[in-house]
C-alpha cells in the first residue's frame, strides 16, 4: 500500500477501472457460465473424457483391438473385477476397448469439427463479404452440401476410399469426410453474422483507415463473430461423434482402431449371449455426447442471456 496520500486516490480508482476493463466479454461470459449447473456439468464431463482419451494408452489393461483374453481363457465373461466391463466372446476386453475408443472418437469428433469450422469460416466470410455472383455461387454450394443426405454419402465415400483407394488412412479419413461434408452450418452462421457486422461503424472506420479486405475479415470481423461459432462447434462435436459411431457400427469405419461404434458392432454380433459388449460403449457415447451438448447449451446461455432470468 504505497498510495496512501489523498493525492493518489484518483490513481487507485483508475487502476481499479483498468481491472474492470480487463473483465472483458469472455470473463463476463465465464461468470455467467459458472452459475449454470448444467453447463458446468457438461464441462466436467467433457474434461473427464478428454482426460480419459489422453491417458487411455496407459490406463487400459490391454492394447487396442487385442483379442488376448481369448488366450487367457476369459472370453465372453460378464463384468467382473478383472474385466470391469466384461469380455466379448471373440476375446475383446470391453473396458480397454471403451478407453481406447474414447481417444478414437474424440479425435474424429474434434478433428472433423475443426476442419468444418475452417472451411465454414472461409466460405462464409467470402460469401458474406463479397457481393454479386461469387456470393451467390458459394451460397448455392453451401445449400447443396446442406441438403444432401449426409450419412449415405459418407458411408459410400468411406467404403470406397477406405477399402479401395486410401488404405491405411483409417480414422483420419473418416475425420476428413465428416469435416468436408459438415461445414455448411458454420458457413451460414458466419455469413449471417458478417452481413450483420460489416456495416457497423468500427468496420467502416477501419475501412476508412485503409485496411484491406483480408485484414478487416481476419482482425476485425471474425473475432466479433466467434461466440456463436464456438457454441455451434461444441454442439457439432457431439453430432460428429454420433455420426462416427454410426459409421463404425455399420462397419464402414477403420477396423484396426478401437472406436465405440466398432465395439457396439461386436456386441450386435453376440447380442443374444452378452449384453455388456453393447451396453458399455453405448453408454460411453451417450455420456460424451451429453457432455458436449450440455457444454454447448451452457455456452449458448452464457453468451446469449436473453432466455435466462
Amino acid at each position, binding site marked *: 500500500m504505497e498510495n496512501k496520500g489523498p493525492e493518489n486516490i484518483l490513481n487507485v480508482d483508475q487502476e481499479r477501472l483498468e481491472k474492470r476493463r480487463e473483465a472483458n466479454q469472455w470473463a463476463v461470459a465465464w461468470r455467467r457460465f459458472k452459475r449454470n449447473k448444467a453447463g458446468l456439468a457438461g464441462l466436467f464431463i467433457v474434461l473427464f473424457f478428454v482426460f480419459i482419451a489422453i491417458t487411455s494408452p496407459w490406463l487400459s489393461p490391454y492394447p487396442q483391438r487385442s483379442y488376448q483374453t481369448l488366450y487367457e481363457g476369459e472370453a465372453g465373461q460378464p463384468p467382473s473385477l478383472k474385466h470391469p466391463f466384461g469380455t466379448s466372446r471373440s476375446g475383446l476386453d470391453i473396458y480397454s476397448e471403451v478407453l481406447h475408443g474414447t481417444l478414437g472418437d474424440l479425435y474424429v469428433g474434434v478433428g472433423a469439427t475443426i476442419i468444418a469450422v475452417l472451411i465454414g469460416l472461409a466460405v462464409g466470410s467470402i460469401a458474406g463479404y463479397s457481393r454479386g455472383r461469387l456470393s451467390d455461387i458459394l451460397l448455392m454450394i453451401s445449400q447443396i452440401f446442406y441438403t444432401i*443426405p449426409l450419412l449415405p454419402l459418407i458411408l459410400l465415400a468411406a467404403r470406397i476410399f477406405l477399402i479401395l483407394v486410401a488404405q491405411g488412412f483409417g480414422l483420419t479419413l473418416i475425420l476428413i469426410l465428416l469435416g468436408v461434408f459438415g461445414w455448411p452450418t458454420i458457413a451460414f452462421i458466419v455469413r449471417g453474422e458478417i452481413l450483420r457486422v460489416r456495416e457497423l461503424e468500427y468496420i467502416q472506420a477501419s475501412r476508412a483507415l485503409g485496411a484491406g479486405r483480408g485484414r478487416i475479415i481476419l482482425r476485425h470481423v471474425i473475432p466479433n463473430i466467434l461466440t456463436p461459432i464456438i457454441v455451434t462447434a461444441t454442439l457439432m462435436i457431439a453430432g460428429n461423434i454420433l455420426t462416427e459411431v454410426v459409421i463404425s457400427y455399420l462397419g464402414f469405419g477403420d477396423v484396426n482402431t478401437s472406436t465405440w461404434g466398432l465395439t457396439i458392432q461386436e456386441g450386435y454380433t453376440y447380442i443374444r449371449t452378452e449384453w455388456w459388449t*453393447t451396453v458399455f460403449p*453405448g453408454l460411453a457415447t451417450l455420456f460424451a455426447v451429453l457432455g458436449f451438448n450440455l457444454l454447448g447449451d451452457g455456452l449458448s446461455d452464457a453468451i446469449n442471456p436473453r432466455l435466462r432470468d
Partner: protein
Amino acid sequence: MIPVFLGVSILTFTISNAAGDPLAILRQGLKSVSPQVIASLRAYYHLDQPLYVRYFYWLWDILHLNLGVSASGTPVADKIGPWVFTTLELQIPALLLAVLIGIPLGVYSARHPYSKGDVAVTGFALFGYSMPTFWLGLMMIIIFSLYLGWLPSAGAAGITRLWWGSELGDRLAHLLMPLLVLTYVQLATFVRLIRGNMLQTLRDDYVLAARACGLSERTVVYKHALRNAITPIVTIVGLSFGSSLAGAPGLETTFSWPGLGYQFVVATYSLDIPMIVGITVVITVMLMVANLITDLVYGMIDPRIRLG
C-alpha cells in the same frame, strides 16, 4: 432444388466411380467371365466412355425415370419401390407422433420454466438427442426381444410365425420398437426447440397485451403465442424428416428393417453402383419433396408469407 439434385447426383456418381473400373470390381468374385461378356457389358454400361459422358447418359435415363439395372440383374426401380414404402411406413408415423407429443411437452416446459416438470422434460429430451438412435434400438432389442420375448427383433413382417394373431397385428408388432425409438429421438429435438421458442415468445409484449385484455391463459398460449413460436418448428420438422431419412441406415440395419437405409448399406457393402446411385437419388428426391412441403406449410401458417 434443381442445383441440389444435380449436385447430389454428381457427387454420388463421382464418389462411387472413384473406386475404379466397376467391372473389375464385379469380376473379383467371378474370375471365369469371358472377355466377350466383359466387352459387351462394358459397351452396355458405356464404360468405354469418360466419366462425364457416362453421367449424362445416366442423367438422360433418370429423366425418363429409368434408374438402370442393378448388379444383380434386376431393374433398380423395381426393387426400390417397395423399400420406399417400408421406410415411409416407419418415418411418417414417427414424425407425426413426435410432433403431436413434442408440442404439448415443449409448451408445458416453457410455461413452467425451471420447475420440476420442466427439468424432467428437458432431461428426457437431452438424453434423446445425445443417444445414438441405433443403440437405443439395441437396448430395446435386448430388453423386449431377448429377455422378455414380447416383441420381434428384426424385419417388417413375420416369416416363421405371426405375432399377435393377425397379419395387421404382426406388422404392428414389428413396427412398434423402431417406431418408439425414432419417435423418441425426434421428439427430443422438437421439445428442445419449442421450449426455446416459446420461452422467447411468451415474453413478447403482444402476449402481455393479450393477457391484459383478459383472454384466458389457454387462448393466450395456444392461439396467440404458439402460432408465432411454431413457425420455425415447421422448418425443423422438415429438416428432421430429412436427417432421419438420411440417418435411417443405422436404425434400419439394427432392426433389419427392409427400407431404403438398410438396403443402401447392403448395396454399398457389395458395391452395387447402380443401386447405390439409385437409392441416393431417391432419398434426395424425398428430401426435396419434404422441403417443398415444408415451404408450403410455412406459407399457410405464417401470415406474412402469402403466395401469389
